[in-house]
């Protein structure tokens, strides 16, 4: 991207002044190399978001920002309902409440090393992954509605996990305000056989070890030590969320003009928070958040089963579960005044700073864990939310690496079998139902996650705590 488009506030803060129909300025957080490599579409989209009614302060993009749908992926924007603020289906995305959950295993890397293949096979056998895979749980109408109301709390009541898991999940595992009656029969139908499935694309389950600790104090609070083995699960609300996203995007795109909203791009589809469409979407979207939380809870249970087959007596407590495609009502201080805002994070992770009441007691002094997934075969990171992130971007940070290359280019450049062999040579075991899927997700098709995380750390969005290296990866 042309650097002349920006006013550089500091090393990692690039501001776009409010011009034309922009109601507020925009800010992209990135280092110079990342911003130079960023698609021009990010500029277009982050400034388009700035034109939406009721937007507060700035339209933000995180260091991993790339071309999305209306909103950039890596976009953050807060809206005030008292000021005509909107809620946008495009600002949440199709995979509602997609997120990452990390589990401790109590095992060390050398304990896993000899059993890696057996563990990979067991996880691949136990956790349904890939296109067309179905779970073992089939929900009837009432069970579906109970799940959409109850989230991970529902799943635990069904026997998938333990009560103590809940305190390590955002919203205590259950998003308030979910309204299953706003979720279409089609969306529910799509979900009937998909509970406890990983999905495909960039979704995965990884066994990883901590290979570097950046902040001993924070790492101790998170109970992470060099050589510790953890499991990270990256997936979302499956077919239900996709269907809700699809239906509301269409509804909001075709009804925006009725609300007097001029959309610079139809994909920015939105509705006033205080409107029938807006309220209906919020009810459905929150139900999809519960679906994602229940899904990750069931996959956690399956993961624990697989581990106990290979490591009898193993115990896998949660470190944390955080979503990166959401719109949530939060309190934020703006110009010294506390306001209730609807914060959209599309491919961005909430990053509450130390002391925030939403953070589990045991972790509160450290700040909220920010779980950043890398691409297959590269590293992942755990960060902690900072106090200054509140003022920087409504307590938000990046969510992953972000693609650097299209799927088409990736499949032309690499073969899935070669990638699997090469990673095996480096000690990383891949299990996937699709070789083409593996090629499309080739490690080098993504941006360098380390550069993204360093920029987020430098910008004060979140603090680096530890780096994770994959040992086993189950790809959908």
């Amino acid at each position, binding site marked *: 991207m042309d650097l002349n488009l920006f006013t550089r506030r500091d090393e990692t803060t690039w501001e776009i002044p409010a011009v034309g129909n922009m109601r507020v300025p925009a800010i992209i957080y990135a280092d110079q190399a990342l911003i130079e490599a960023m*698609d021009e*579409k990010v500029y277009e989209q982050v400034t388009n978001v700035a034109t939406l009614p009721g937007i507060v302060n700035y339209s933000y993009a995180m260091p991993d920002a*790339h*071309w*999305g*749908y*209306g909103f950039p*992926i890596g976009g953050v924007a807060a809206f005030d309902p008292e000021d005509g603020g909107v809620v946008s289906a495009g600002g949440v*995305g*199709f*995979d509602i409440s997609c997120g990452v959950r990390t589990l401790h295993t109590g095992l060390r890397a050398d304990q896993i090393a000899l059993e890696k293949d057996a563990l990979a096979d067991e996880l691949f056998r136990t956790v349904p992954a*890939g*296109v*067309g*895979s*179905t779970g073992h749980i089939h929900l009837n109408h009432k069970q579906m509605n109970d799940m959409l109301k109850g989230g991970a709390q529902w799943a635990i009541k069904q026997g998938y996990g333990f009560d103590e898991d809940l305190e390590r999940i955002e919203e205590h595992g259950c998003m308030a305000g979910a309204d299953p009656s706003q979720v279409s029969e*089609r969306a529910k*139908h*799509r979900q009937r056989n998909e509970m406890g499935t990983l*999905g*495909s*694309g960039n979704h995965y389950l990884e066994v990883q070890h901590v290979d570097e600790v950046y902040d001993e104090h924070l790492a101790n609070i998170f109970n992470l030590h060099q050589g510790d083995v953890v499991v990270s699960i990256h997936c979302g609300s499956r*077919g239900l969320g*996709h*269907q809700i*996203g*699809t239906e509301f*995007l*269409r509804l909001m*795109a*075709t009804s925006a003009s009725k609300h007097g909203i001029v959309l610079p*791009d*139809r*994909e920015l*589809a939105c509705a006033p928070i205080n409107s029938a469409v807006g309220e209906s979407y919020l009810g459905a979207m929150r139900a999809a958040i519960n679906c994602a939380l229940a899904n990750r809870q069931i996959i956690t249970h399956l993961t624990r089963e697989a581990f106990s087959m290979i490591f009898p007596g193993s115990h896998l407590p949660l470190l944390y579960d955080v979503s990166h495609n959401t719109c949530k009502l939060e309190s934020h201080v703006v110009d010294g005044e506390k306001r209730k805002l609807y914060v959209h994070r599309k491919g961005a992770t909430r990053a509450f700073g130390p002391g925030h009441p939403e953070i589990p007691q045991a972790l509160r002094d450290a700040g909220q864990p920010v779980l950043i997934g890398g691409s297959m075969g590269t590293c992942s990171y755990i960060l902690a939310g900072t106090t200054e992130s509140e003022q920087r971007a409504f307590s938000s940070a990046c969510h992953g690496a*972000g*693609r*650097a290359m*299209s*799927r*088409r*280019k990736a*499949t032309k450049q690499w073969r899935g079998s070669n990638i699997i062999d090469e990673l095996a040579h480096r000690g990383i075991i891949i299990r996937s*139902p*699709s*070789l*083409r*899927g593996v*090629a*499309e997700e080739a490690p080098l098709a993504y941006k360098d996650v380390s550069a993204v995380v360093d920029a987020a750390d430098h910008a004060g969005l979140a603090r680096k705590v530890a780096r994770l290296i994959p040992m086993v990866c189950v790809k*959908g």
Partner: protein
Amino acid sequence: MSAPRWEHFEHEADIGVRGYGDSVAEAFKQAALAFSSVITELDKIEPTTCLSVECEAPDYDVLLVDWLNELVYQMAIERMLFSTFNVVISGCYLEAEICGEKASQQKHQPAVEIKGATFTELKVFQNSNDEWVAQCIVDV
């Protein structure tokens, strides 16, 4: 069999599908072929089972999104992949017979699941050769 008149186009994170045709219906059919080939090779899908679908929209653009999203829905609930499409469009009402078979991880090696068709790069128009073009980005 006539030459394929569809293609994929670039999007940073996802993929664009584009179909060409002498009519809107033909362009929609070709876009559907492009769509299925995001998931697997078309010649791996045997059209043994057929379903009927319909959709209606205020304009051709939204009709294309609805059509492709109908395929997403049918693939999801029927656990099928589709390779043959007979499309009839009158006004902004579409009826189609779609044929394919149950998805198999062994046989089809499906690469990705399509989450939905989007309004991004969405266009249905006649180009300078008087061909109809139907395109959009699909989220995978």
